[in-house]
């Protein structure tokens, strides 16, 4: 009996080992690809950049801000959005039936008044309660509607938008003033571009002034600090790596730019999923493949937006649960694309990667830990081998995190002070003890939720970022 169990365990361990090698090979390819991409980006931005300022014929951009119970952050977000350095900008805020005073805060601050305005595209199914404009800020439109979820709010915002390009941001996102200027460029430089996204950084701990990050600091809260490392890893070698390979399928809902006509033609955001950002990109890309249209989805490292990371385990758990449910839902929904050469690299490499190496990763990790534990218990595993293997895995994780932080430092803009940097390196060293296992549990919980068909968002409590004067508009911007 023990011998059979040992045999089964040995097989399981080999399976986990092969999985481990596949994951690491995939990540190594992405890392190399990301480094090459970053080098090329940095070479291009060596000289002084005049930007797009003063350039005629730029497409109008509409910033879409869905807001549900965001009274703590909404002024900061709208002020930052309107302070973006872009010549033809419009901001559409959709108050998604907030139960707090989100709308009242906006009405007070921007002296909003009801306006007679029809949507620029089709929308009659949503219960719009009112549309507001501001004499002092003519580029601002606020749409008040019944609660219907984030995707529905984004669709309403798109209906009221007049820009050729639409930029979806979360209500807790603060965009760097030059970020849009950089993000618009792929649309000017390559007619195949259907979407582009930038880097999201964790704003906790940073010093803000007039809704702009003026000093970058490492978060003091432990969970936020660990997430800062995770964000660098996700964006700067995950998405940047896929970029060079042409396989980007995720544009973060917190900061992404889309061709509005394409989004409308595709039917807008799906409102029956919690992974609406990835779902939209997959739908846009699959439709492009099906119609034989060349297309590109770009991730750019230099346009930066800041977001507030959850600081309590409960909020973070809900977020990770939702992200994993979203991933599962989107992959199941688009399962017919997986492994199909008709969908190019996306079908043959990217989606299998996400399905096998991202979605199933927590389950495999738990299975690996269980088999190792049982193996030890029955003496089927060589302790020295297990220790060396654990060291290899730990070292590899350390390399990925350090490489991401090194790449982060090579981006233009804010640099961390020595103290903050040392602290951040400390978090890199300890993140695999405890935190990683917690995220595995949260993601497993998300998988279970996906199996149950749970599509709830859960309540996201936010503290708000420390801005000196959050509601004060930057002079000269409409």
């Amino acid at each position, binding site marked *: 009996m023990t011998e059979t169990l040992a045999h089964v365990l040995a097989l399981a361990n080999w399976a986990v080992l092969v999985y481990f090698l596949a994951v690491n090979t995939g990540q190594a390819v992405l890392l190399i690809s990301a480094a090459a991409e970053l080098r090329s980006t940095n*070479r*291009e931005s*060596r*000289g*002084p*950049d*005049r930007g797009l300022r003063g*350039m*005629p*014929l730029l497409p109008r951009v509409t910033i879409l801000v869905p807001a549900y119970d965001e009274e703590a952050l909404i002024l900061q977000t709208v002020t930052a959005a309107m302070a973006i350095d872009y010549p033809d900008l419009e901001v559409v805020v959709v108050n998604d039936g907030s139960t707090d005073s989100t709308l009242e805060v906006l009405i007070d601050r921007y002296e909003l008044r009801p306006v007679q305005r*029809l*949507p*620029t*595209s*089709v*929308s*009659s*199914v949503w219960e719009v309660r009112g549309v507001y404009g501001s004499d002092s800020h003519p580029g601002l439109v606020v749409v008040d509607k019944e609660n219907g979820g984030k995707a529905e709010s984004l669709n309403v915002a798109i209906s009221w938008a007049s820009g050729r390009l639409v930029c979806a941001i979360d209500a807790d996102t603060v965009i760097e003033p030059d970020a849009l200027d950089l993000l618009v460029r792929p649309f*000017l*430089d*390559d*007619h195949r571009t259907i979407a582009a996204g930038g880097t999201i950084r964790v704003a906790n701990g940073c010093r803000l002034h007039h809704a702009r990050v003026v000093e970058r600091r490492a978060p003091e809260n432990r969970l936020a600090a660990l997430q800062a490392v995770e964000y660098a890893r996700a964006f700067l070698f995950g998405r940047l790596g896929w970029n060079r390979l042409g396989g980007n399928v995720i544009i973060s809902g917190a900061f992404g730019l889309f061709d509005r*006509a394409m989004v*409308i*033609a*595709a*039917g*807008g955001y799906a409102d029956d999923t919690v992974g609406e950002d990835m779902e939209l990109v997959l739908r846009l890309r699959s439709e492009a493949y099906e119609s034989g249209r060349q297309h590109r989805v770009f991730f750019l490292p230099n346009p930066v937006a800041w977001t507030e990371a959850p600081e309590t385990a409960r909020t973070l758990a809900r977020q990770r649960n939702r992200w994993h449910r979203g991933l599962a839902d989107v992959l199941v929904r688009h399962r017919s694309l997986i492994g199909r050469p008709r969908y190019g690299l996306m079908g043959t490499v990217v989606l299998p990667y996400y399905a096998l190496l991202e979605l199933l990763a927590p389950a495999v990790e738990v299975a690996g830990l269980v088999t190792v534990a049982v193996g030890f218990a029955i003496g089927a595993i060589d302790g*020295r*081998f297990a220790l*060396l*293997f654990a*060291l*290899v895995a730990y*070292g*590899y994780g*350390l*390399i990925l995190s*350090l*490489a991401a*932080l*090194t790449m982060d*430092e*090579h981006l233009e803009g804010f*640099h961390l002070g*020595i103290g903050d*940097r040392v602290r951040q*390196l400390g978090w890199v060293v300890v993140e695999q003890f405890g935190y990683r296992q917690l995220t595995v549990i949260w993601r497993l919980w998300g998988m279970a939720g996906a199996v149950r068909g749970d599509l709830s968002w859960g309540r996201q409590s936010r503290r708000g970022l420390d801005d000196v004067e959050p509601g004060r508009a930057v002079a000269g911007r409409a």
Partner: protein
Amino acid sequence: MAVLLMVVILAEVIAIVALLASQVRHVLRHRHRQLRQPMVDEARRAVVAAVASDQATGSTVRALNELSPGDRDDVLCDVAASVRSHQDPMFQELASLVGTADRIESGLRSRRWWRRLAALQRLAVLGLPNPRAVALLDDPDPRVRALAAQWAALVDPTGLTAERLSRLLGDQSDRVRHRASVALFGLGPVAHDAVRLALGSGDATRRRSAIALAATIGDPGLASAVWPLIDEPDPGLRADAIRAVAPLLGDQHIDMVEELLDSPHRGVRGAAAEVVGSAGLLGLAGPVANRILNDPSAEVREAAIAALGQLGSSGELLLRHCARYGWRVT
């Protein structure tokens, strides 16, 4: 197996040390930059003072020469980008006195595209003329060609430059064609002859870019030159041509536009709906409203909504009528 794992661990340790060393190097470089900052600020103040007084004194040059060559170039470009408009002779003088012009010259000759690009970026920010940079309009790298187009229009806004730029309208790179279009648009009427030349080109890409540009410029003279292209077989080109001739359209063209509204190509239908709005063809408000309610293409429906919005109170009335009947959600 254990030996293999130990080798992997050793390799990982080397990689970790290298990455940590890179972090340390970055910290040191940042620290060094912080230490240099007062000198850089001093030089920046000196350049601003020189620009304000229109006189580069010895102290300005000394302040700049105390910096590293890279910092010198950065300070000049920073001030040029934020203080003055292009082609200020002061920057030309300072650039030649502190060696920036020589470094740009050598950068323009480099075999590495990123060095040529950086040199051209400095040239564009400082607004300096340079005969060698004109040749970069034919550079093998599209990034360099695109920037050369912007630079050329800034420093030499003449018909000759427009003619050179109009050749780039047929470039294979989207970025180059876009920047050339922007540069030609910025040149104003000086560029109209060059655009006309491109409209008559045998190169379909160049013709298409020129039609789109003519549509954006909206000049009746250019629109007349586009008129013969309205029957182009390519629907995309035809759609652009329809937009370009909008300034010439009147009630006598209603039948023609109505026919275009029923075209089998959605791009053509969308363009026809657009010109109903931009040319104020009130007689076609009904067929456009019909497009809002019945067209299978979201692009056409959206163009039709925008067109009715441009037709004043009658258009808005129809728009509300359409809204009541329920716009199709794609």
